[in-house]
């Protein structure tokens, strides 16, 4: 990642001796001073980020870890309760329901979204020219998909007598409105996620452009079928990008909030079907003023995401191939 820091001392030395040759000759060792001055400059430039990192990220992270073991309602001081929040969580049916919903959304929705992204990226990669418009058009939903506007549009499209219901009726399928039906909320939310396949698609496409054409030609010479080429050339060559997309998209999926909140009108309805983890966390914290319980939920989410990332990193050794390895 940072090859620059290896160069930096060298360049600093040149600069120093170039700027003040007499000075460096006299002191003999100009390096430590330069480095100190650089350290100062580094921290000056970094100061806004550092302040934000300590004050708005690291500090709050630790604070919420502490609050997770307390009873805190925002108005009186937090009261240490040990593991009580975890115990309450274990008995909380709504909590488990929100875990289930969120896991289904992440574990089913993300692979579908990425499969769509990869398929469309391959379709676009098939031609060298004239794909710019389509690339942009497919990307557009990623930019706006998490907005309240789109959640409202989605609600309207899937309502009773809306366009989706109407179209399905033409095929003799009468599902009625999806919005009021708890068992159709999840497919609808996943469709909304899959509709935003554009962002991972763009990243796949950039990866596909980097696969050398010779590999496909060599595979053709060997008589490989298209499926074989996909499995033996495309997937291994793309595996770092697949890994990156999988990690990022899963973490993003865990955090779905605005669409679920708007589609369920902030109540988690119908029948708790839109009570995603983040929606429930928000409700506990800011509607019920149970900041301690919500902090515990937040840390459980963080640990879950951490464990998932760890599993991905661990298994990645067996399926992610970096081009440098084979050289």
């Amino acid at each position, binding site marked *: 990642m940072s090859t*620059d*820091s290896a160069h930096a001392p060298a360049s600093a030395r040149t*600069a120093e001796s170039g*700027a003040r040759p007499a000075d460096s000759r006299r002191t003999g060792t100009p390096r430590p001073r330069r480095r100190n001055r650089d*350290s100062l*400059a580094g921290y*000056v*430039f*970094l*100061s*806004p*980020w550092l302040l*934000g*990192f300590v004050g*708005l*990220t690291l*500090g*709050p992270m630790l*604070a*919420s870890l502490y609050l997770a073991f307390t009873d805190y309602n925002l108005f009186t001081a937090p009261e240490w309760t040990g593991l009580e929040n975890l115990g309450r969580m274990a008995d909380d049916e709504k909590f488990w329901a929100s875990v289930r919903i969120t896991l289904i959304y992440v574990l089913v929705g993300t692979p579908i979204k990425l499969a769509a992204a990869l398929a*469309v990226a*391959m*379709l676009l990669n*098939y031609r060298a020219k004239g794909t*710019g418009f389509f690339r*942009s*058009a497919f*990307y*557009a939903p990623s*930019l*706006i998909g998490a*907005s*309240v*506007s789109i959640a*409202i*549009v989605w609600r*309207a*499209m899937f309502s*009773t007598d809306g366009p*989706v219901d109407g179209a399905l009726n033409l*095929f003799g399928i009468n599902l009625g409105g999806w919005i009021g039906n708890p068992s159709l909320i999840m497919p609808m939310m996943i*469709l909304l996620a*899959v*509709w935003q396949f*554009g962002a991972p698609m763009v*990243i796949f*496409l*950039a990866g596909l452009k980097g696969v050398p054409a010779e590999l496909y030609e060599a595979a053709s010479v060997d008589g490989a079928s298209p499926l074989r080429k*996909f499995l033996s050339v495309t997937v291994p060559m793309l595996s770092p990008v697949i890994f990156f997309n999988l990690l990022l998209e899963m*973490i993003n999926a865990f955090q779905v909030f*605005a669409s679920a*909140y708007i589609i369920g009108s*902030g109540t988690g309805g119908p029948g708790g079907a839109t009570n995603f983890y983040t929606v429930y*966390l928000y409700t506990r*914290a800011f509607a019920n003023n149970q*900041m301690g319980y919500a*902090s515990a939920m*937040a840390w459980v*989410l*963080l640990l879950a995401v951490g464990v998932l990332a760890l599993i991905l990193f661990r298994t990645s050794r067996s399926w992610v191939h970096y081009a440098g390895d084979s050289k």
Partner: protein
Amino acid sequence: MTAIESNPAVPVPRDPDGGPQPRPRRRPMRRHLPTALWIVGIVALTAIVLYPLLWMFSASLKPNSEFGSNQGFLPENPTFDNFVKVMQGIAGIPTWKFFLNSTLLGVGAVIGTVISSSMAAYAFSRISFRGSKILFAAMIGTLLLPFHVLIIPQYVIFRNLGLIDTFWPLLAGKFLATEAFFVFLMVQFIRNLPRELDEAARIDGCGHGRIFFSITLPLIKPALITSSIFAFIWSWNDFLGPLLYLNSPDKYPLPLALRIFNDQTSTSDYGATIAISVLALLPVMLFFIIFQRFLVDGVATQGLKG
């Protein structure tokens, strides 16, 4: 349209060459057929992907009486009534006020993000200082951090500072480069700039401040543009932040105003709700149409080094 349902299952040719190859001599023929198929496939897919947006525009022109009765794509009696009604505002607040609030937040986000992220990116990519590696790793780590872990303590902090129901909690993070995506994007960009320019400037006696302003910033303009647009659009679309921190309706940005429309009128007044959704998306769409290259390329480079 079955459009939406079939989206994930759209039949996509698995391989550019398509199908087994009978004889090499038929090559010219084979190149034509897949091209035609490709065009049909890609156009159909585009129609599916853009359908919700087209439907939204079309539906915003439907009079209320047509919702439910006219399931067709086009309105029978197109009208701008929905927009006229929406511009009158809601809860006693004119709609332009929501646009103004969203714009203020968006512009603030752009200014804060560009300044703070470019400074951090310069430090990470061009200055060697003690602890830079571990701090860089920490910065990358925040890319993966779920935001919800931070919202409660952050809320407590801003509440103790007496800043609830002001724009400050929404802007503070932007001026402190908390969005690692932007820092990372700019770091990638600066690393690809030739170092010789910096070194030449140093020989001429320039300090880091001078190099940053006179050399680095002008050269990373594309990254600054990409970051600005993303910062603006993300701020414009942000729902959770304003939901947490803003209580007075006259301070609401559009997403919160949309929520009031959605809760109060959605059952009775679809037209107005869709119309304000269209209005809220218009600036984002315009930005996208003008700057799409910057945005899409920005996303593409983000993934390459992951």
